[in-house]
């Protein structure tokens, strides 16, 4: 059912845990399917004065695919600029895992959503400009959470 990479990331997840005093926290989830992801980011400026994700950690309640995608997205995003992190798509996560069963693709969506929410949280807390695209993504995730929480 799962690729070797999914099982590896699930059994030995990377970057698991919380960051105290995180610069941004992103939460995404779906109570109906049972997956809830929290992503914590710590940012710093690199030599080029770009803001990068110095550290990233996750906490996830979910199936093997949810835990594996959380772990993989933190691996892909660590050290990236904010723009670079936001460009990581669900397909990138699924590809890095060697593929996911069709019914589990929604787990990779959650991972990408949680990461973009963490970036949104950082930008909004620091009164930094937020792209229209990111605002739209944030609104969509909020609506989805509200809907599933009502159903639950």
């Amino acid at each position: 059912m799962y690729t070797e990479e999914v099982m590896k990331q699930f059994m030995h997840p990377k970057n698991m845990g919380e960051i105290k005093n995180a610069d941004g926290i992103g939460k995404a989830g779906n109570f109906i399917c049972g997956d809830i992801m929290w992503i914590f980011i710590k940012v710093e400026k690199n030599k080029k004065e770009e803001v990068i994700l110095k550290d990233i950690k996750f906490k996830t309640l979910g199936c093997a695919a949810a835990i594996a995608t959380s772990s993989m997205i933190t691996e892909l995003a660590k050290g990236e600029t904010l723009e670079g992190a936001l460009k990581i798509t669900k397909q990138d996560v699924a590809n890095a895992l060697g593929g996911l069963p069709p019914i589990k693709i929604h787990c990779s969506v959650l991972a990408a959503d949680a990461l973009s929410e963490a970036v949104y949280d950082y930008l909004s807390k620091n009164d930094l400009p937020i792209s229209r695209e990111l605002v739209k993504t944030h609104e969509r995730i909020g609506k989805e959470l509200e809907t599933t929480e009502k159903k639950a």
Partner: protein
Amino acid sequence: MKRIYLDHAATTSVDPVVVEAMLNHFTKKFGNASSIHQFGQEAKVALENSREIIAKKINADSKEIVFTSGGTESNNLALKGVAFANRNKGKHIITSRIEHECILNSCKWLEKQGFEVTRLPVDQYGFVRLEDLEKAIRKDTILVSVIHANNEVGTIEPIEKIGKICKEHDVHFHTDACQSFTKVPLDVKKRNLDLVTINSHKIYGPMGVGALYIKEGVKIETWQHGGGHEKDIRSGTENVPGIVGFAKAVEIAKEHDIQRMAKLRDVLIKGVLEEIPNTKLNGHPTMRLCNNANFSFKYIEGESLVLRLDARGIACSTGSACSSHTLGPSHVLLSIGLTPEDAHSSLRITVGKGNTEEEMEYTINTLREEIKNLRKISPFGD
């Protein structure tokens, strides 16, 4: 690594004694039971002996047993067969919300054909309430189908009382006894049963064999047309080796195995509830199958737990959607009042006659460790 199988509600291994009984019927007595030559007649004798053994186990007459390919086919035949054969009497069917999918989906299909279905709710343990049944029965009710023991939470339904109510109202009563057969005594006469579904692979017999008890006089429409096998109720060459294996599995089912399984189940339930915090037992504490334990572990998801246990050699299952083809959690767990989160955190452990107390101890310890690991990953646990 030692492997421990604790998913006996899904299927059991075939007992070596059963395999032995079947072997001759693959290679030597392999005739078609409908053939008139000696090979065929040997098969016919084996078929009828098997029918006798199975009928006796439920206090039925052998002519009331129809062999099928398993529980799903028997349940389909019971519901659709009775519905269509009794259309002139009525179009209303009653079932419960915690039936196996093959009952629920047969009911959905029957609704499309113009029948009306009432799905009875259950209480927190999974019991159908008798007063709900009484209220639901109408003048045009033709069939009540309530599972004998639930396949997920193991609760044993009060089928004797349900049978009595059905008899008083002159309504046919069917029960799906796939999980309970040979584990809970089943006397079709005492319990006023008109139709009973049973199968082989849950009782150390082969897969692909089942039977439907149809009380003499119950009208039933055939769904499989062919050469008129099984009194024209279920055409198709009988699976004689499988049926012989099924009967042998019935013969070797012993009371001491049931007592043993119940003891192991109790060791497991006690150990898990005592040693793992934030844990709940689903189903009734005592009125449950001898081999079933179903838990909800807060702050984790069932599929993750099943896979982590599997990596440590323990095979069991979950009612969480993430291991199935849909995203919604188990309809049974939601029906007994669990929240989606708690339903997603479920684990079903079903012991078998070959399991040991040492295996239960290993399972409890492994569960404790893996649940701790998963709660560390969870935003809500630890």
